Each structure stands twice: as structure tokens, then as C-alpha cells.
């Protein structure tokens, strides 16, 4: 168990205190900057009327659903391209080119095709999330040492067993990194889609609060988005540690 980071918590509190003082004393021209106390009371209200919870659940569900679909697609396609040199030769450049297009620019196309709907949000999340999984799976499969392939041959494993018992475990650390990158990307894309397309979730909460000129409520949604990001990341790390206790798939934590 790690000791509580007192200094870190202290800095957060001091920053919030300074912020409160600056706004209350009206230093500078910050008429739209709400004080932390105002944000706190807006948060209490948003929690009380259930709006915050409902919106957060929507964003969470779409993110996880899209991430799941992107993971399955990326893993399947990545394994196919990683294992078959012919498939790789005859398609990889196409994927590289498509991947280079910033997913943001697909938002307008998705809006034109699917309208303001949940489908548009999901399509965008899946489309954006599939790339890290795909690229990392291919990289992981390609990095499997030739000796391991030889072991598979020697044990006379059939193709499926070889993939399951040799290739997948060896490629796992790279795949896990791709899955984690995809998860935070899916959250970002879900929020973008909600801001411009599907009028639900945290993203729409932000826009609605912005248009209603309720900056305190807007900050509540920014905080909610950040907390959701932190929580998803922590959950992912926890799940990886639980599923693969050997540590081969664990990454070093950042902070």
C-alpha cells in the first residue's frame, strides 16, 4: 500500500484556495470564471436532480460498448494481418493511410450519414478506438520470437492452438498497451460526438451548460469528464493486474 501523497493533496487544496480568493476578490477580468465554492454547489445540485449521474452513465456505457467493439475488431484484424504476410502486404498501406486521417474530420461525415443519433456516436467511437488495438496487435504478433514459433511447430500444435497458446500470450503486453490507449481515445471521441452530434451524455451537458451561461455547471462536467478518465484508467490497470498477476502485461505506473 502506498502512503497518501500529502504534498500532492496539499498542492491541490492550495490551488483551489487561491482560485477561490482570486475570484472572490475579483482580481482581473474574469467575469465567467466560477469560484470553486460555486462549482461545488452546482455539483451538489446536479447530483441531487440526477442529471449528472444519468449523463455520466450514458457516456460510460457508450465508451465501454464502443471500446469493446473496437477491441474485438482490432484484435481480430490485427491477428490476421500479423500472422499472414500476404494479407499484410496487400492491405497494410491502406490501413496506414486511413489511420493517418484525424478521426475528428470524420465527425462531419458521420453526422451527414447517421444524423444526430446514438449510432453516429458509436460509429465514431469504434472507428477511432480500433487503430491503437490494431497497430499494437500487429506489432506484438510480429515481435514474437521465431524460437516460439518453432516451439509451436515442434509440439505439433494446430494453427488455432498455436495462436492461443503461443502467439497471443507472447503478444499480450503490446496488445494491453493498445487496449489502454484505445480506452482513453474512446472516451474522448464519445464526448466529442455528444458535443456535436448525439445530444446526450457529458459532452452534451457541457454544451448545454455553456449555452445556458452556467459556467459553474460547465466546470462540473469538465470535472466529471476528467474523473471518468482517471477512473477508467485505474479500472483498466486493476483489471490487468487481476487477470495477469504474473506482471508480464503490467506497465509501470506513471505517477
Amino acid at each position, binding site marked *: 500500500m502506498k502512503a497518501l*501523497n500529502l*504534498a*500532492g*493533496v*496539499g*498542492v*491541490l487544496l492550495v*490551488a483551489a484556495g487561491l482560485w477561490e480568493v482570486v475570484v472572490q476578490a475579483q482580481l482581473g477580468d*474574469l467575469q*465567467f*470564471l466560477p469560484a470553486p465554492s460555486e462549482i461545488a454547489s452546482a455539483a451538489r445540485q446536479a447530483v441531487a436532480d440526477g442529471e449528472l449521474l444519468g449523463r455520466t452513465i450514458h457516456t460510460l456505457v457508450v465508451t465501454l460498448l464502443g471500446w469493446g467493439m473496437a477491441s474485438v475488431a482490432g484484435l481480430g484484424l490485427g491477428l490476421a494481418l500479423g500472422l499472414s*504476410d500476404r494479407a*499484410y*502486404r*496487400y*492491405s*497494410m*498501406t*491502406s490501413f*496506414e*493511410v*486511413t489511420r*493517418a*486521417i*484525424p*478521426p*475528428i*474530420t470524420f*465527425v*462531419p*461525415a458521420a*453526422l*451527414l*450519414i447517421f444524423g444526430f443519433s446514438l449510432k453516429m456516436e458509436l460509429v465514431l467511437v469504434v472507428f477511432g478506438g480500433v487503430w491503437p488495438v490494431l497497430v499494437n496487435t500487429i506489432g506484438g504478433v*510480429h*515481435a*514474437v*520470437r*521465431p524460437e516460439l514459433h518453432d516451439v509451436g511447430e515442434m509440439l505439433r500444435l494446430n494453427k488455432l492452438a498455436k495462436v492461443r497458446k503461443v502467439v497471443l500470450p507472447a503478444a499480450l503486453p503490446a496488445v494491453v498497451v493498445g487496449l489502454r490507449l484505445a480506452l482513453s481515445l474512446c472516451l*474522448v471521441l464519445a*464526448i*466529442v460526438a455528444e*458535443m*456535436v452530434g448525439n445530444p446526450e451524455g*457529458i*459532452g452534451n451537458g*457541457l454544451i448545454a*451548460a455553456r449555452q445556458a451561461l452556467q*459556467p459553474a455547471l*460547465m466546470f462540473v*462536467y*469538465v470535472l466529471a*469528464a*476528467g*474523473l471518468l*478518465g*482517471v477512473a477508467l*484508467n485505474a479500472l483498466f490497470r486493476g483489471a490487468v493486474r487481476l487477470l495477469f498477476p504474473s506482471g508480464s502485461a503490467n506497465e509501470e505506473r*506513471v*505517477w
Partner: protein
Amino acid sequence: MTAEAGVQSQRSRPVGRTHRSGVVTGLAPLALLLVVWEVVGSPDSPFYPAPSSWWPALFTRGQDEDIIPAILDTSRTFGLGLSVATLVGVGVGIGVGVSVRADRAFGPMFEFARAVPPAALVPVATLLLGFDETMKIVVVVMAAVWPIMLNTRAGIRAIDPIRLDMARSLRMSPSRTVGRVLLPSVTPAVLLGVRVATPVALVITLLVEYLTGVNGLGALVGDAQRTFQPARVYALIVIAGLISLAVNSLIRSIEQRIRRLHLGG
């Protein structure tokens, strides 16, 4: 010693088989898709206009002079944003890399700030800063600074303590130590951070422009979508993709050149 041995064994025995991508053959599926699209789609389809109608759509109805200024606007926000993010990221990265105490103190704040999706910052930034270039750059910096900062910090941590002891025994002043020891040692890590931050900065530039309508390619795509010009949307997507490919390969070649210069090889 062990590191050198590791490099040698890697060189004598390549890990994995070689995988040739085949630049031309690899484009086959994309080309096939476009051909099928061209045959099936019609120029007036509201969803899937034929690819041959994309390029002309860029230059119709008095919109033909918007493209170049938009590309320049996007380039400026992207370039300034990435530059500021590099300066801030390297500065803060050195700070928290050198001082473990500062790292622990500011770690939680940075971790939270990093977790906030950049898109969520856009409404806040427009409210506080208005719809202008400064707002765009602030959002880009908020998104692109993290990879640079984290890599700088990791680079500082990885510096051989002997180098710092050397600086101390030569009685270098702190500023000289930073300039002569820390910065050169950390350059490869910073370059890696900048390379990771480059696509992020570009995507976020387009995102801000799209969400706020403040100039640039992103705003142009948004306009085309709101006025139902699908062919124009697809044409702009292609342009954004080409720019992204060009920028990424440019930054990669710059990185390699500096690395070679730096390592003297």
C-alpha cells in the same frame, strides 16, 4: 556492458521474421474501395458522393478561395501550439524530473489535468478567452504538452548520475549544469515526446476549429457539413489526411536527423 551485449545479440539475430509492407500492393484495398464507390455512388448522393466529385467540390460557388487560407490558419495554430507545448513541457519536465519533491507535489494535479479530454476544455476556453487564436493555442497546448513533459521527465530520470557528479565536481553553476549536462542528455527523450505530441496537436487543432468555427480546415469541414455539401466534406477529409501524413513523416525525418547529429554517428 550488458546493454552493448544486448544490442549485439539483437543485431546478429533479428527478432521475428522480416515483414515487408509493400507500399503499392498495400494500397490495393483502398483503391478497390474507391473504385467501387465511384461505380456505385452518384455525384448527388447525400451520403456517399462519388470520389470524382470530391475535388471539384472544393472549388465551387465562391468557396474556391477558402482552402489555402484555411490550411495556413491550421498550420499556424498547430505550429505555435506545438512550439509552446514543447517549451512548457521541457521546462516543467525538467523541474519534476530533477526534484522528486516537486514531482510528488504536482503529480496528482498533472495526472488529473491530463485525464480531462481536450474536447471538454473547448467550451471552457471559449467562455474564458473568447473565440480567437489565443484560445485555440491554449487548448492545443493543454493537450500536446503531456507526452513532451512525461518523456522529458523520464529522460532526466534516466541520466547517468555520474554525469551530474561530474558537473558537481567541476563546480558548474546550476544554469551551466542545465545547459551543458541536462539538456544535451535529455534531447533524445524530448524528441520522442515531440514526435508523439505532433499528431495530438494536429488533431486537437482540427477539433478546436471544428467545434468553435474559428478559421482553419476544421471550421471549413464544419461549414461544409452544416450546409450539406458531402462531396466537399470528403474532399476536406482527404486534405486533412494528406497533411497529417506529411507532417508525421516530416517530424520523423527531423527527429532522425537531429538524433544522428546528436549521437555523432
